[in-house]
């Protein structure tokens, strides 16, 4: 963990204690469990978004991928077409497929990722509408062994959180110690240099988008488990939350820097803010203002840090 992540973790803990001091309802096991379980879903989606943003791209379609997977998995289980493990596999496969389509449009058809995923954001939502055809999946129709994990914990830690921690650890190792991980950073920080040393940028970017679909698939399945009721609007507007989590966690939107641990901390931070608002009697309608402000502050801080490091570099060159 770098100093930036450490200081951010510090801020998050201080915020936690402050809110806990102001209101007794916050630092209660029950509240912390529900909060962190939902944070785990956003974190898992943020892992994929982190990879994409590090390659200097962006994926706006995450929310629709979550929606499609959540609905399809819930629907298959309600209709008893598939067993629970099969439905999991199916959902993840759909996520990978949708992510791969994004990757193909960006790398093969050369559409800028912002435009490509703005398009697929609408198209995937259309798929969810098509599959749902106006019907909702209700909690009562879902098999118990599918929805059970929402209430399970391991020594007080929700199962969702354990899964998220495991995935964060795996991705942190991959990003730091594998060729693939280093290539993601290389493509994002300097595509030309990366090409010179033999990184196939298109393959790397395609993989990042595909992995983003994979993680969105897992997030979609967990979403269904967590909420039980699923309609074709599931996940609406969550892309902004996921992207806000990633950039507030210190992943540079200019590509090439940031860590999955930072992104996870960003998701935790936003989750805590979200949870603290009603407890502090602040109206929920402020949430979007906060998300927007957080994105702007994060990108400003990013630019300031970069400017300072460039100035330092210039100064050291003069000496």
């Amino acid at each position, binding site marked *: 963990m770098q100093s930036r992540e450490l200081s951010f973790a510090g801020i998050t803990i201080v915020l936690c204690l402050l809110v806990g001091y102001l209101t007794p309802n916050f630092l209660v096991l029950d509240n912390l469990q529900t909060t962190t379980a939902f944070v785990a879903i956003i974190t898992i989606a943020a892992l994929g978004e982190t990879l994409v943003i590090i390659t200097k791209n962006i994926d706006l379609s995450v929310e629709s991928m979550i929606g499609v997977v959540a609905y399809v998995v819930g629907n298959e289980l309600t209709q008893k077409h598939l067993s629970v493990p099969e439905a999991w596999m199916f959902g993840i496969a759909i996520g990978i497929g949708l992510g791969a389509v994004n990757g193909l449009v960006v790398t093969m058809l050369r559409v800028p990722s912002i*435009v490509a995923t703005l*398009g697929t954001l609408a198209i995937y939502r259309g798929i969810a509408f098509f599959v749902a055809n106006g019907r909702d999946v209700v909690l009562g129709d879902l098999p118990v062994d599918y929805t059970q994990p929402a209430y399970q914990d391991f020594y007080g830690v929700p199962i969702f959180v354990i899964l998220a921690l495991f995935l964060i650890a795996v991705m942190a190792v991959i990003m730091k110690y594998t060729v693939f991980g280093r290539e993601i950073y290389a493509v994002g920080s300097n595509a030309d240099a990366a090409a010179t040393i033999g990184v196939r940028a*298109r393959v790397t970017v395609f993989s990042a988008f595909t992995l983003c679909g994979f993680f969105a698939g897992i997030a979609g399945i967990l979403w269904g488990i967590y909420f039980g009721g699923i309609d074709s609007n599931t996940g609406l507007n969550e892309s902004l939350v996921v992207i806000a989590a990633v950039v507030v966690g210190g992943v540079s939107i200019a590509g090439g820097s940031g860590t999955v641990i930072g992104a996870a901390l960003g998701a935790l931070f936003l989750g805590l803010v979200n949870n603290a608002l009603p407890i502090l009697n602040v109206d929920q309608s402020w949430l*979007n*203002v906060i*998300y*927007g402000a957080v994105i702007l502050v994060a990108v*400003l801080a990013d*630019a300031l840090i970069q400017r300072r490091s460039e100035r330092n570099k210039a100064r050291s060159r003069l000496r």
Partner: protein
Amino acid sequence: MTLDTKGGGQDHAGSATTNSPIAALAPLVRWESLLLIILVATILIGNWASGDFLTGLNFSNSINNAMEVAIMALAMTPIIITGDIDLSVQSMVGLSGAVMGVLWGGLTPLGYVPLPLAIAVALLVGVIGGLFNGVLVTRWGLPALVVTLGTLALYHGLAQVLLGTNVVTNFPAGYTDFAFKNIPGTFVPWTFPTFLILAVIFYAVLHRTWLGRQIFAIGKNKSAARYSGVRVGSMRTALFVVAGLIAAIAGVILALRFDSVRSSNGANMTLTVVTLAVLGGVDINGGKGTIMGVVLAVLTLAAVQSVLRLVGVSAYIEAAVGFLLIFSVTAPLVARRSRDLVNRVRLGGQSPSAGQAARNVAPSRGGGV
């Protein structure tokens, strides 16, 4: 029509470093004629699919539905030409409507503000919001994409804070008539000539003045533009301000048309606005585009949406717009590739443009292949 199309193209070409005007003109004219063909085809399909398509009522409804996004697409065009983008316009639609609604509806400590004043404040909010975007992008050097993604959330959030769950309605008939009714004796809604007048103004400024030439110059090469005396930062900021103002106007029109102000007004409009610009032939990477193309795109999309609505699949309009967006970005590339392929086959791999294509691909393929 043909003359106009050529006029638009020539202007665009005029700002480029033209070694051969006809060559530079060719792809543009072709794109706009392609749009015209799609428009005519859609009208024919619509007429075949539903007897209600070619009626005055349907014309009036479809045009009315499209006018808010249409005027925003006009303002988005120069922004994309300079290489920026404004994702926040849909939230500005909601925010300006909310400002107008809370002032007029007496939801603020100021009591009941007269509607003209409330509208003026709403438009001022649009200018301020656009200025905020522009200053963050140009003065602070932040990427437009992220800044406007942030303000997309911010402005929407402000609208939610202002309105809460309130809905303001029952605006005076004199105002809603403008947004909703037709010009007496015709099936042309009042908003249509408004759009056309704005389109003429945008056309004139973008294609007939030095301001427009500066905008194209910025899109082609920012530092070259700066060295030749274009005030790049001020120009880009001004374009964001215009986009904010136009989005605020669209917000006021939308609120009056539905006679309802709620915080969800404008949701998903950014997708359609960007699609209209790109479908109209504006290069998403900047430097190219015509107002004529965008006007054609507005009519085409209005026709497509109308057909989808008439055959009863209005739930998929958004998805169709998404398809059109990706289609219009990829179509020129696919066309160029297939032309190169044909040339290569015909000339035995010696086509100069095929060579150029290979050069384009080289950096991303890298040395690892």
